[in-house]
């Protein structure tokens, strides 16, 4: 089976407009969460008035013409993919050997809802012709595919908060199977809009810490009260080790596992026994040919919900047993919020940087760690000890989707 490596990374997040700047901001303990200033917050009396908005507006990067034809989720996707592609040195690859696996949780929700408003207010003739291409969930992937000339297949994984990881896992296996030599993989989301916010709030899933947004996303803390929505995108360039070495590409790390399982338990709640999540982690390690002791770092899903954080701990403990004490866990959603379809992708970027720099990023807002979650979560950046350390990144989504990626430092 072919070995697959990461040769480029890109991201636009609530922390910064690039992968590296986001990583630096993460290391520096910054928060990307802020109060929403839009008129619709007051207009609709939205109960949650803060979120993780992209630090750099997509409109500052794309030309007006490009931006007009893309839903914000696709705008973020395209920006992050172009960054990753440039970072990888714009690999010369035949279009028939280049594929795209780019996820989103809900795709063009802004376009969809704006177009409905237009229909209601001004009639069907005012609905713009680009509406369908812009709202379709394969929009982000298609935009990237067209920009880079990918002809080996453009795919969109959709599994709620597990989407980003699932897309990357698919890309990994695609290359292993020999369907493509290079795949641009990742995920994007732009759903900071009154409806999704109200809908998540209606399920009591969101933190209501309106008066202190930067402290609201607090995975593992005893006072956590729900997740914080974030927007943005993350992208990776994955290619065969052979292709990367042949062209002298910079190699960040190797991707060694990508596993997807399902809970079949409840449409939103995770299985409290963590069986499905545990299986996903174990399978990823099996694919990696790694033992549990090889794992030094876990970028946890850890969304800051009372129930979710504990369920993930239970799963981790099932898998790692006493080795759990040797894991260095990062809950980066504390800094970025939850990017939904984009979460797995930006967290993959952070996991890859952790392996490259041999440094686990700090987790902020952890003032009082829940005693029922006795994981080792550094509050300052902490060195990894093995040059061949394995790190895993977890993402679990509504619908019972479990997707785990495994990377190995080179």
């Amino acid at each position, binding site marked *: 089976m072919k070995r697959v490596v990461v040769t480029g990374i890109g991201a636009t997040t609530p922390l910064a407009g690039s992968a590296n700047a986001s990583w630096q901001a993460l290391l520096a303990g910054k928060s990307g969460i802020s109060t929403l200033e839009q008129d619709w917050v007051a207009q609709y009396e939205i109960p949650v008035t803060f979120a993780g908005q992209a630090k750099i507006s997509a409109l500052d990067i794309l*030309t*007006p*013409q490009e931006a007009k034809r893309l839903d914000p989720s696709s705008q973020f996707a395209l920006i992050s993919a172009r960054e990753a592609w440039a970072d990888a040195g714009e690999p010369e690859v035949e279009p028939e050997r280049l594929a795209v696996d780019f996820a989103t949780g809900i795709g063009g929700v802004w376009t969809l809802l704006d177009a409905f408003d237009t229909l209601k207010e001004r009639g069907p*003739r005012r609905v*713009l*012709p*680009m509406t369908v*291409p812009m709202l379709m969930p394969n929009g982000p992937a298609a935009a990237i595919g067209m920009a880079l000339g990918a002809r080996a297949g453009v795919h969109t994984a959709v599994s709620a908060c597990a989407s980003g990881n699932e897309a990357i896992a698919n890309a990994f296996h695609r290359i292993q199977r020999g369907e493509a030599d290079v795949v641009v993989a990742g995920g994007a989301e732009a759903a900071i809009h009154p409806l999704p916010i109200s809908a998540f709030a209606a399920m009591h899933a969101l933190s209501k810490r309106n008066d202190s947004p930067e402290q609201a996303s607090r995975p593992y803390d005893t006072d956590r009260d729900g997740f914080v929505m974030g927007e943005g995108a993350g992208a990776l360039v994955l290619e065969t080790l052979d292709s990367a070495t042949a062209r002298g590409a910079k190699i960040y790390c190797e991707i060694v596992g990508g596993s997807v399982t399902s809970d079949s338990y409840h449409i939103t709640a995770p299985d409290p026994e963590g069986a499905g999540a545990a299986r996903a982690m174990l399978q990823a390690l099996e694919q990696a040919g790694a033992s549990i002791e090889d794992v030094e770092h876990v970028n946890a899903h850890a969304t800051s919900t009372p129930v979710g954080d504990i369920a993930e701990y239970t799963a981790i403990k099932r898998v790692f047993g006493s080795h759990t004490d040797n894991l260095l866990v990062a809950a980066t959603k504390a800094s970025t919020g939850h990017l939904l379809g984009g979460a797995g992708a930006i967290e993959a970027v952070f996991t890859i940087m952790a392996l490259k720099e041999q440094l686990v990023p700090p987790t902020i807002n952890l003032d009082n760690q829940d005693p029922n979650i006795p994981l080792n979560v550094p509050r300052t950046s902490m060195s990894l000890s093995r040059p061949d350390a394995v790190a895993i990144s977890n993402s679990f989504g509504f619908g019972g989707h479990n997707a785990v990626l495994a990377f190995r430092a080179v």
Partner: protein
Amino acid sequence: MAHSQQEVLAGLAELVNDETGITADAVQMDKSFTDDLDIDSISMMTIVVNAEDKFGVKIPDEEVKNLITVADAVNFITENQD
């Protein structure tokens, strides 16, 4: 309020520029939308919707295929605006 042909041309050029990035002065009366200006069908449809809004005209779907050059569009709009 009725626009002169010049105004319609200028307005149309603005819409084309907005949608496609083509500079306003490239939008000349004798230019063909598809052959000279390289505007694809979906951009054309968007320009039509925006033109209806901007000039207060109705451009029926059957008519759009007759608007081959910029002049065709400008003339139609100038003649049919209210």
